């Protein structure tokens, strides 16, 4: 099982990675990407089960990545959680349109993030 963490901020990638570290012991592989294009490429080749996807990113934003994954590549089974900064207007409708499964706000609740990952992976 694979989880992809996509965020252009290295600190946040590290924090999310650290949050999900325990899952590595249960056989989950943690992958990272630093922008939208890299994320899309990784999703295409690795087909992760779950993606934590930042919305505001250079090159390709989270909505576009999600749209490409769900609608263009047809990888509907890839569970996508959009991450949006608190205070930042999040376009729920856009999130729905592009087929995101859930969205969470940053600063994220590490406990909730880990619980969500476990739930999606059935651990």
């Amino acid at each position, binding site marked *: 099982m694979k989880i992809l963490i996509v965020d252009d901020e290295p600190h946040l990638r590290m924090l999310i*990675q*650290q949050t999900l*570290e325990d899952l590595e012991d249960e056989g989950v592989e943690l992958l990272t990407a630093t922008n939208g294009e890299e994320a899309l490429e990784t999703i295409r080749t690795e087909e992760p089960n779950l993606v934590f996807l930042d919305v505001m990113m250079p090159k390709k934003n989270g909505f576009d990545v999600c749209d490409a994954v769900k609608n263009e590549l047809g990888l509907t089974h890839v569970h996508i959680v959009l991450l949006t900064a608190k205070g930042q207007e999040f376009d729920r409708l856009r999130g729905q349109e592009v087929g995101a499964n859930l969205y969470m706000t940053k600063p994220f609740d*590490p406990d909730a993030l880990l619980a969500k990952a476990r739930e999606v992976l059935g651990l």
Partner: protein
Amino acid sequence: MLPVVQALVEALGGNIAIEDAGGKLLFGEATAGPSRFPVSVEDEVLGWVSGSAEAAASIVSLLGHLAAKELERRALAGEVLHLYREVHLIGQLSEELAAVLDAADVGQAALEQALRLIPGTHAGILFREDLDGPLRPLGTHDAPLAPESRFVASVLERGVAEIVNDYPADGRALAEESSLRSLISAPLLTKQRTIGLITLADTGGAPYSAAHLKLLNTIAMQTAAAIENAIASQQLLHREVERQALKLYLPPQVADLIVSSGGTSQLAGVLQPITVLYADIRGFTTMSEEMEARDIVQLLNEFFTAMSGVIFQCNGTLDKFIGDCIMALFGAPVPSERAAQDALDAAMGMQQALMVLNQSRIERNLRPFQIGIGLHCGLAVVGNIGSADRVQYTAIGDTVNVAARLVNKAAGGQIIVSEAIRESLPDFAGFDALGEVDLKGRASKMNIYSVRD
């Protein structure tokens, strides 16, 4: 990483195999060589390198170094995540606390967040409304300490947060608290005082640290402020409810005065000079026999509404409606030298208001009616009288009884007053003496007067 290792192996010209701690081959071939060298960090074996001793030693050294670096990075990342989690939870608590307006809910939210941040088997908040008032728990969780705990008293007295990591050995521990091994507690401080304390305890003896204490103090500060807000808003709400209730029988300005000066608990019985007004509908019994129930209710509602307005305008207190009769007080709850004058003004105003009401009733094809009014003044006991379930602000005593008798002497449209009223209003020239009359239940006769239109 792999290319670096590969290059190194080639440079060393050796046949090298790398296995993980469980013996799973990660690199090279299983036939690399007979000797296995452990790759370890802080005495923990992470994997094995086999091959020629010289080449393997270099690889072991490189892998060991990389692994140590990775562990260091992870430790740092772990620490940062820990801080991030704390910041997140404290932020979340602030948000939650801002949204609750009930002290118990504040306590519950604070305890839940405290237990997410600080380990413990027990958590509790004890709170007191007044400095010498009783302590009561806020929120429900396994409370570590009872209000009568000596430790509680000591934290409240000193107003300083404290950690005790061997509680049974602490001089303040009581026998019933012996299951608690470690304990951490912070006072709930507001600007003026210590309103309580929040305590976490662990029966397993997990030691508390200075970092925990700092967190608990932060939670305690937020909680104390939120409890204070919750109580202030409850008081405001309570006052408003009380004010609305009082407004049903008091002029609005008097209701405000009472609420702002400490509430209805102040209205205990006192003996004071008051003027009592009784007004009732003449011939009501006969009328009601001839009318539909619905019409009677409509008549009474119109009558009471019109009369209440006049009474309030003249600073009167509406005591009660008794059937078709209105009882009102003047000079209570707030004593007034103008009570008799106010009552007389009210009585005349009521007769006028009734004329207006009757005009409107005639226009609506409804039956007009007339009222008689009686006024008397003197000392009476006024205050909240009744049981705990049902309390009413009223007046009792002979003054009240006389006023009730006088109204029976009043014909439709008439106002009858006692000698005491006439004496209270020496400047009023509109009294006509009606002579001495017998009043039911009284031994001596009484001089009564009617008021000229």
